[in-house]
């Protein structure tokens, strides 16, 4: 997928001005948050479980090469072929080759973020293989001219019922309907046909289990099961960081993933798939491929951003992010939105291609508090900001301003004078109204919100006063 992250500011302005998106985001806002809050109460010791999950994920990343070799060995022993892809282009090349080799005309897909990273659908179509997204949300996006997803687990959270009704009416040539169960039924019937006729299934992988060489797939709709039960070829496309050691670790992580994602104690379907169809079995793929993808991940190993590789793609950080809740996911401009995306996009696509993303956060730490694998997201965002300054990627006037501030701040008398002056200036701007709608020196601050006018004295003045009064 081509990144539009460099246009973040403009994307965000567009999102704020889109009334359908704004209404959809408002509707969704509390639901994920409330359900998660209830679901995590079922875990007696939620903190200890998060700590255990963090340990499981760290353990693998700290010896990632060895765990990958182990997984390769166990998966191969069960008849799977393990392939490796450096980047999106290589994912596309490998999947197309596999398709050609097995005479594939149609591929049904269950959600895979890696395939979004690679822009796999376009490559398949260009090679004469019809890709069909089968997750309801992803399907809606595909029939809307391959619109990008706006959430990693709820891809159409930004869309209204009316938009979906129009799309189905237009695409399926059926009478327009606005009943959600009826729309779901219609999609089920259209997609059932595709499941039965596709020769290849493509899925992501929530976890790769080193002990058994299996992939674990977590879905509610059952499309993950369809894609891996009916077609004769199954291709798993997933990141190299997805390995976990044992089935016991899967049990631990499954206590956190659905609760953090959708607020369910468990997802409707968890499939642990190992190897190819056994003798005498009436279903299951004859050929199983794993494509283990780097696409920027290897460089994060051993770096100060390594914590990010623990991510289990639950989406809790975006559900709880005030910025995400306001602008939606597409504004972030690449595959991953919200706080996790603001870290991943610059790391995977280059710091210089996503200059605004590390700033697209208030650092309120809601994300850090809810992350089931305890990724310190605000800290990583702050580190990315530092990197930008180090690498001279911030504009010269910003760098100059910070240097000036540092110079003044290290001179107390001057600093006190400066802040007193600033407060009086802001009061003058507010003109007694309590808030400021245009900040002359930093107009972006007040584009989507008002700036509160300062009240009374500066902290230093008050502190000095208190000191005098005892």
């Amino acid at each position, binding site marked *: 997928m081509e990144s539009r992250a460099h246009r973040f500011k403009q994307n965000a302005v567009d999102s704020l001005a889109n009334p359908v998106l704004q209404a959809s985001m408002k509707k969704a806002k509390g639901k994920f948050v409330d359900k998660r809050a209830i679901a995590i109460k079922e875990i007696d010791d939620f903190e200890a479980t998060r700590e255990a999950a963090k340990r499981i994920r760290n353990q693998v990343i700290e010896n*990632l090469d060895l765990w990958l070799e182990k997984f390769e060995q166990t998966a191969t022993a069960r008849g799977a072929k393990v392939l490796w892809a450096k980047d999106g282009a290589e994912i596309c090349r490998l999947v197309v080759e596999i398709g050609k080799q097995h005479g594939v005309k149609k591929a049904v897909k269950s959600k895979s973020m890696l395939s979004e990273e690679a822009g796999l659908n376009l490559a398949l179509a260009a090679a004469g293989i019809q890709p069909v997204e089968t997750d309801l949300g992803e399907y*809606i996006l595909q029939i809307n001219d391959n619109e990008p997803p706006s959430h990693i687990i709820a891809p*159409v959270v930004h869309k209204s019922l009316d938009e979906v009704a129009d799309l189905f009416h237009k695409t399926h040539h059926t009478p327009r309907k606005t009943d959600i169960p009826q729309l779901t039924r219609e999609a089920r019937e259209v997609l059932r046909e595709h499941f039965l006729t596709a020769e290849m299934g493509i899925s992501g992988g929530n976890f790769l289990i080193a002990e058994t060489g299996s992939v674990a797939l977590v879905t509610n709709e059952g*499309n993950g099961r369809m894609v891996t*039960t009916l077609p004769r070829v199954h291709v798993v496309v997933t990141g190299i960081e997805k390995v976990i050691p044992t089935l016991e670790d899967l049990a631990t992580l499954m206590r956190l993933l659905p609760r953090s994602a959708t607020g369910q104690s468990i*997802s409707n*379907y968890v499939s*642990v798939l190992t190897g190819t169809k*056994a003798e005498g079995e009436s279903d299951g793929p004859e050929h199983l491929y794993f494509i283990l993808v780097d696409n920027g991940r290897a460089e994060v190993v051993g770096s100060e951003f390594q914590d990010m590789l623990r991510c289990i793609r639950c989406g809790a950080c975006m559900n709880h992010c005030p910025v995400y809740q306001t602008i939606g996911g597409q504004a972030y401009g690449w595959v991953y939105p919200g706080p996790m995306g603001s870290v991943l996009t610059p790391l995977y696509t280059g710091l210089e291609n996503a200059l605004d993303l590390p700033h697209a956060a208030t650092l309120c730490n809601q994300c850090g508090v809810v992350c089931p694998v305890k990724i310190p997201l605000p800290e990583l965002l702050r580190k990315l900001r530092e990197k930008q300054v180090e690498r001279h990627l911030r504009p010269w006037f910003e760098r100059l301003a910070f240097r000036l501030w540092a110079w003044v701040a290290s001179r107390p008398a001057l600093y006190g004078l400066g802040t007193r002056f600033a407060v009086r200036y802001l009061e003058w701007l507010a003109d007694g109204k309590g808030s400021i709608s245009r900040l002359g020196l930093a107009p972006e601050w007040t584009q989507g919100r008002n700036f509160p006018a300062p009240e009374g004295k500066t902290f230093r003045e008050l502190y000095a006063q208190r000191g005098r009064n005892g």
Partner: protein
Amino acid sequence: MSSRDDILGRVRARLNRTPENAAAGRASLEATLAERAQGPRPALPTQKSALTERLVEKSLGYSSSVDRIGSYAEAPAAVARYLAGLNLPPRAVVWPQLAHLDWAGAGLAVEARGARDRDLVGITGCFCAIAETGTLMLCGGPESPASVSLLPETHIALVPASRIVAGMEEAFALARAELGALPRAVNFISGPSRTGDIEQTIVLGAHGPYRVHLILIGDK
């Protein structure tokens, strides 16, 4: 250089891999695999009957329905009753494993095979059931095809009370003890399939079954 060597090479470089620390790393990896440490677990009752109650309560919470009978011999009649209650025709596809039950005696026409698109009712057993979350564990195989719990609109599962375990950990331990290696398709099923993609409105019956009916055997 192959992409495999390139990717692993870069990971090794980033981890400052040396022959010595590789040996130590491998030893700790094997120790982890041998130890199979469990994470913290939510407290669950230990008595069998309490686990059964938990399974029932959780299954109902996941929009499944539950019936309880005394023995396998009563299962065909229980299935017939359930289908009649839903006004469904007395026809089903059943796991070959369960073909020996007297389905015809209860007025049911069953076919023992994998499911096809138009099959309306699928009858399966289960490898075990997990009380913690109200989850069925099904192991695919020639006698227990995965399609039967997936394609039909109605999924009926026969669940022996003796096979109810506390959590996923016990389910995996049972699989290791009884099956050795994991079968190709292990499916954990908790209620009917669902989607919440359109305006976060939950709809049952996305791609899989609209209803899941558990018939608990042997705790009556």
